[in-house]
């Protein structure tokens, strides 16, 4: 068969969203790839220029549908850097709980989407089952099922509900048992191993040079994590270590990226359990109660020349908001909101990664990088 181009997408089960991967194939072998993004480009950065600082949080939530809390927290940390706001310690703990629960939910969604990529629907349904558990916990915190609008500039929306710690501990302990079920259906299945091991090699330094970060780099054998390298929040008080996978000599393959995310789910669950124990008491969840900035009546202001940015460990890698103040004459809006999306950089790299493999490996490799098109297209 001669070489031909196949356009995978925008509506294709492989894409996990809405984008096109143009693949040049020779028989069953992939020769060349070319990603084409922008099918759900919403212009969030432009819209945010017309919103004041509290109104941007919901847009940050909606950037990545699988991982809403991490994105709104990434924004909030940047906004606090811009507006020079302090956060009480209890609020930091509550944020950590929200972010780590969201990280578990996001990885569960990833694992759920990855199982059909290698041809199994059962794993997907099981992962979605446990994701409902995390959704329930997050819903208690934020009040909504997916987009919580939970963090506030200088604190969080509300304190933990009564009995939250109890339910959270019980559910996380159940969840830690349930992870073994996934390992039973994935790790113990030789077909899964031959599908994921030995395909999609990626090396750590190469990935860093390409701008790929987060679990994908940790799968390649280096424990680089924004949470300790560019520290923020109260992660130094918790007992944790970033999950690192030992790759093969040729670099990390799909199996490593699967393993590191499962381990990270475990690590996050333990982190939440630890944080619930160490959380200081009191109801001090906002730097100034009844602050008008929260109510939206007298919005926070940042003058021209002020900038704020914050590197944040998203569930897919390092994400960042860059805010420049002075949007209008009163400094109520940001002048420019710029969003660093980890998947926007990762998708071209992952597309390069699959050259030389079979067509059947395309979903296996692409899925292992955890694409999320909502944040990619912004």
């Amino acid at each position, binding site marked *: 068969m001669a070489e*031909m181009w*196949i356009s995978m997408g925008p509506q294709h089960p492989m894409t996990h969203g809405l984008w096109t991967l143009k693949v040049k194939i020779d028989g069953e072998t992939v020769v060349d790839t070319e990603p084409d993004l922008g099918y759900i480009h919403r212009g969030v950065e432009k819209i945010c220029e017309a919103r004041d600082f509290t109104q941007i949080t919901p847009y940050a939530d909606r950037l990545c549908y699988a991982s809403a809390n991490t994105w709104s927290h990434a924004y909030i940390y940047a906004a606090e850097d811009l507006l020079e706001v302090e956060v009480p310690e209890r609020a930091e703990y509550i944020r950590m709980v929200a972010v780590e629960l969201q990280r578990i939910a996001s990885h569960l969604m990833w694992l759920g989407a990855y199982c059909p990529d290698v*041809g199994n629907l059962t794993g997907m*349904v099981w992962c979605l089952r446990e994701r409902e558990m995390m959704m329930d916990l997050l819903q208690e915190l934020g009040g909504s099922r997916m987009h919580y609008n939970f963090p506030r500039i200088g604190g969080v929306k509300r304190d933990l509900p009564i009995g939250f710690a109890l339910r959270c501990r019980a559910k996380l302990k159940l969840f830690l048992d349930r992870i073994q079920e996934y390992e039973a*259906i994935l790790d113990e299945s030789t077909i899964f*191993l031959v599908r994921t*091991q030995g395909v999609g090699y990626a090396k750590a330094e190469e990935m860093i040079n390409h701008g790929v970060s987060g679990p994908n780099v940790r799968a390649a054998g280096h424990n680089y994590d924004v949470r300790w390298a560019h520290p923020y929040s109260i992660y130094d008080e918790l007992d944790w270590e970033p999950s690192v996978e030992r790759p093969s000599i040729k670099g990390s*393959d799909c199996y490593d990226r699967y393993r590191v995310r499962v381990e990270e789910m475990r690590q996050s669950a333990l982190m939440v359990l630890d944080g619930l124990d160490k959380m200081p008491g009191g109801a001090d969840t906002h730097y100034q109660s009844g602050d008008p900035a929260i109510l939206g009546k007298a919005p926070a202001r940042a003058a021209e020349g002020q900038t704020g940015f914050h590197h944040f460990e998203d569930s897919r890698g390092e994400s960042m908001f860059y805010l420049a103040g002075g949007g209008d004459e009163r400094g109520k809006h940001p002048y420019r909101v710029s969003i660093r999306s980890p998947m926007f950089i990762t998708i071209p790299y992952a597309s390069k990664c699959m050259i030389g493999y079979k067509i*059947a490996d395309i979903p296996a490799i692409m899925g292992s990088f955890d694409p999320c098109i909502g944040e990619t297209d912004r």
Partner: protein
Amino acid sequence: MILLATEDVLTIRDWVGIATDFVSENTIGMSRHWEYTDSVSNFLTEFIMCVMVFGGIMTTLLILLWMERKLLGRFMDRRGARTSLRSLWVGENGVTAGEWWNQLPFGTGVPVGMLNQFLNEVAGNDHELEAVSRVKNRSYHGVWWMLPGFFQNLADGMKFLTKEHMVPEKADRYVFEIAPFLIIATTVMCFTFIPLSPNFYSNNSEMSILFLMAIFSVAPLGVFFAGWSSNNKYTLLGGIRSAAQLTAYEIPLLVTVLSVVVLSGSFNLIEVIEFQADSGVWNIFLLPLGGVLFLVAMVAEVERIPFDMPEAEAELVEGWWTEYGGMRWGLMFASEYLRTYAACLLFAHFFLGGWEAPFEDTIPYIHYVPHILWVFLKAWFMFVFFVWFRAALHRVRTDQILEFGWRWLLPLSLVNLAMATALRLWVYDGINGEWPLLIPILITSISLALFILLSVDEDPEALEAQTRPFSVQTVDVASPGQHRE
């Protein structure tokens, strides 16, 4: 007792034969074409039996589909389909379906209305269980004898009837239209030679197994036609994959079937079953390896997970049938399950003794159970394995199934054939027509022990070094997919 095992309480084929004989003698036999009486009678018998067998298969196919949905749902912690016929007379969410039976002419709808009233009383909305389970957030959809979810597949099939038939403009129209019929026709033809009981079959030809295997492998040709003619790159890839993997599993399948034939000494399916009944041992206990090989090859033949590359949803959108919609797709979907059904029936016949009841000689009165029921029960039992594979396993890659077929299935099937030949030549007691009782027990226990030993695939050294169970850790070991150097 042994004689009873090969007879049936319902000697349907004999009755049909008597009836057609009577009819043809009284019509053709009276006329000047009297010499064709036997042929016409035979033709009529075959035709009626074909229709009856196919009707039986199609009605029980609904059970098969229901099993698939329910079992898969249970494996996935869901409930599976729960659609019931009740909405036909109740309506949806308060929008009633209207008393449509009253529109039927001549008052023929009155009994329907009475039935409806009765059903509403015992299984209607106001049933107490419904309220209770709504409170408990467990949807209760009718009583069990309304078979919740059973009619879902009926609804799907009837819906396909009403869908528009679309042919892509650039498609090769004639091939596009012919391909589904090729697939469906060959699938249906399988059932002419699969007996459902000693007296319920449509044709008993001398070489029925040969014909069965031949007709079973025509469908991939139709798949290739369909994939090529749709003028879509995904369907083309699916069709080519189907043709490529054909050789990988077809040859082991045929060699395995050959081993059964050698063991039983006949190419006739009914004689194979009768041999198992007469000799007192089912083939699965003599050729356990053959049973496994046949099952694996059949999973590949009917293109189910883990060997469903031609319709791999993750990479090729829906595979070779991406461009088919409406009733043609529905029929191909049904023929997929018909092929699975045929595979299950063949497994039951080849290895599980066909219609012979388990311990037919020891358990008293068990031979009064109709033979056709045993065939169906065994087939459905085998279908559970197919669903189980689908729920538990992942999809392999094209090169992996080729490698698996040529490197593992083919040598193993040859070993199996040698085993069957040896058993038949030196072990089988041809005078009494029986197997020595020790042999099946020995073979089965050794095979079970081997299976358990080989299932433990953990490499202790790898575990100690914390490497992976499936080692591609070193550069030296070749692993599939390494083409990047």
